């Protein structure tokens, strides 16, 4: 035992002597991680305390129910089910419509005979990816406003003359469609790369067997990119409970919180706008724990199915 310890100190000194410059180089990185990642991690204990900024984290008193007061408050509140429902509804809609869209587009692009036309389509469809979220949401807001061209188009089918974003039923479609519009073209890149990796001889063999283009797609192309398709699906499933707050904040308004408010936007409002620091941290922790469980599960599945983990 004692020998081991001495041995370690010995090795430690040697290591330091040889690599002190390397450790010096990495020191700012370590300080960065401590200050901006581990310190906030320590900060999550305010979820179990009645945090008062004047008293600091350590001095603030623990809450009742073994520090779980704010968690129970959240579970019992009217918001809990609504937030859970909205979060799941929005992300599942994004999954169901947003995940196949780039796959279909990539397959269609792959079938184009003219390389030049393919290039043009790609270049144009990548364009929305380079526009900032603020601008995209600004455009959406203008297009679906009372006089916006999308609203005017719907007016032709009898939709009342009002902003679409004042209608709670319209929020999810607007969110999902604008997401697909912004991300679909760019999302094809990874599938196109997988498609270009398929061995051309497989197609020749299929042709000799008399397979037409539809059969070739079914039996050569799709199996060739199935790994990528599954990984992208699992990645999306893993983040099903973590919808970002930014885009929703840019699109929603108090009139449609009923369908548009999700956990992250609620954390923002209760924490930063209403100063309920402990409560909103508890809500955030709940979300993080669920996220971690989901990611772990889907990582396990991914390892089983494709032999490649996400981690």
């Amino acid at each position, binding site marked *: 035992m004692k020998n081991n310890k001495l041995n370690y100190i010995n090795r430690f000194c040697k*290591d330091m002597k*040889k*690599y002190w*410059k*390397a*450790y010096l*180089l*990495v020191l*700012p*990185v370590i300080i*960065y*991680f401590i*200050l*901006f*990642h*581990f310190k906030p*991690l320590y*900060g*999550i204990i*305010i979820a179990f305390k009645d945090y008062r900024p004047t008293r600091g984290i350590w001095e603030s008193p623990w809450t009742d129910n073994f520090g779980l007061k704010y968690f129970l408050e959240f579970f019992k509140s009217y918001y809990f089910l609504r937030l859970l429902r909205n979060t799941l509804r929005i992300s599942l809609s994004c999954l169901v419509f947003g995940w196949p869209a780039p796959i279909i*587009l990539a397959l*269609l692009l792959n*079938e184009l*005979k003219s390389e030049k*036309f393919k290039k*043009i389509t790609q*270049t*144009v*469809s*990548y*364009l929305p990816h*380079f526009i*900032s*979220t*603020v*601008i995209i949401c*600004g*455009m959406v807001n*203008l*297009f679906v*406003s009372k*006089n916006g*061209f999308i609203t005017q188009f719907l*007016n032709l089918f009898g939709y009342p003359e009002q902003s679409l974003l004042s209608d709670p039923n319209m929020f999810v479609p607007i969110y999902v469609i604008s997401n697909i*519009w912004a991300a679909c*073209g*760019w999302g094809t890149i990874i599938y196109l*790369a997988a498609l270009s990796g398929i061995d051309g001889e497989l197609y020749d063999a299929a042709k000799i067997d008399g397979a037409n*283009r539809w059969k070739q797609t079914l039996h050569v192309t799709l199996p060739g990119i199935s790994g990528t398709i599954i990984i992208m699906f699992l990645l999306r499933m893993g983040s099903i409970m973590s919808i970002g707050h930014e885009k929703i904040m*840019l699109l929603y308004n108090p009139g449609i919180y009923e369908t548009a408010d999700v956990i992250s936007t609620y*954390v*923002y409002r209760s*924490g*930063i706008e209403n100063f309920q620091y402990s409560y*909103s*941290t508890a809500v955030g*922790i709940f979300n*993080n724990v669920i996220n*971690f469980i989901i*990611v772990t599960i889907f990582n396990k599945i991914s390892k089983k199915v494709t032999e490649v983990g996400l981690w």
Partner: protein
Amino acid sequence: MKKRITGGMIFDAFNIFIMLMVIVASAYPFLYVVVASFSDPTELARHQGILLMPLQPFTLEAYKMTFQLPQLLTGYINTIFYVVVGVAVNLIMTTLGAYFLSMDGPMHKNIVAFMVIFTMYFSGGMIPSYLNIKDLGLMDSRWALILPGAISVTNMVILRTAFQNVPSSLREAAEIDGATIIQVLFKVMLPLVKSTLAVLVLYYGVAHWNAWFEASIYLIDKDKYPVQLIVQQLLSSLNVTEDIGDLVQYVELIRYAIIVVTTAPILVLYPFLQKHFAKGVMIGALKG
């Protein structure tokens, strides 16, 4: 001789039609914004259907008003600062971390690696991070937009992989010649991973260009706002009396003009950026 129409030909025609629709759907919203910003406001409100040319009488009023908004220029200058300084900090920190993690020797490498990976899966979340910034005294400081995101772990992993792909014989040869660790980094490693560094500049640069939320919670002084936050505020609550006087009917038009003015630089750079980005996605996907 007449050719028979086959199923394949019908499919090809259909496919080309779908692709044309994709092109229209991707580009038309931008075209609409540009055209609308030059159109007569009353005509625009009345107009229904597709818009391809500015509605007469053609007007530049919205642009005159837009260029008179002083915040927009300040915002632009601020954003340039955040992009340039932010990316510089990002590159220095990411390089230091990635270089250390690519070394074979140091005994405590795993501790650092564990620290990094741990933070990928466990984070304090929005409120503890916000309170941390307050606690560090970074409220209303430009550094609050630069330091907290100094390293993206994904990008660091990409760069570490690039370092590891440099043949170790090159490193060893330099060490035998008496080069220190720092000299190896600057003289041997960095010149060999230039293309990966270029991709990281683009990734980090775009992230800084798009950022608005952090600025909205950390900054108080409007003179420090980046352009995206200015635009967000202008679009959501264009203050009629204060900002544009009595030109009420031009509010919508000014919104369109603001979008055009802030998006134009990206559209000009787009053809150049697009190529590099597409390459970058592949580097990230293959190596990461």
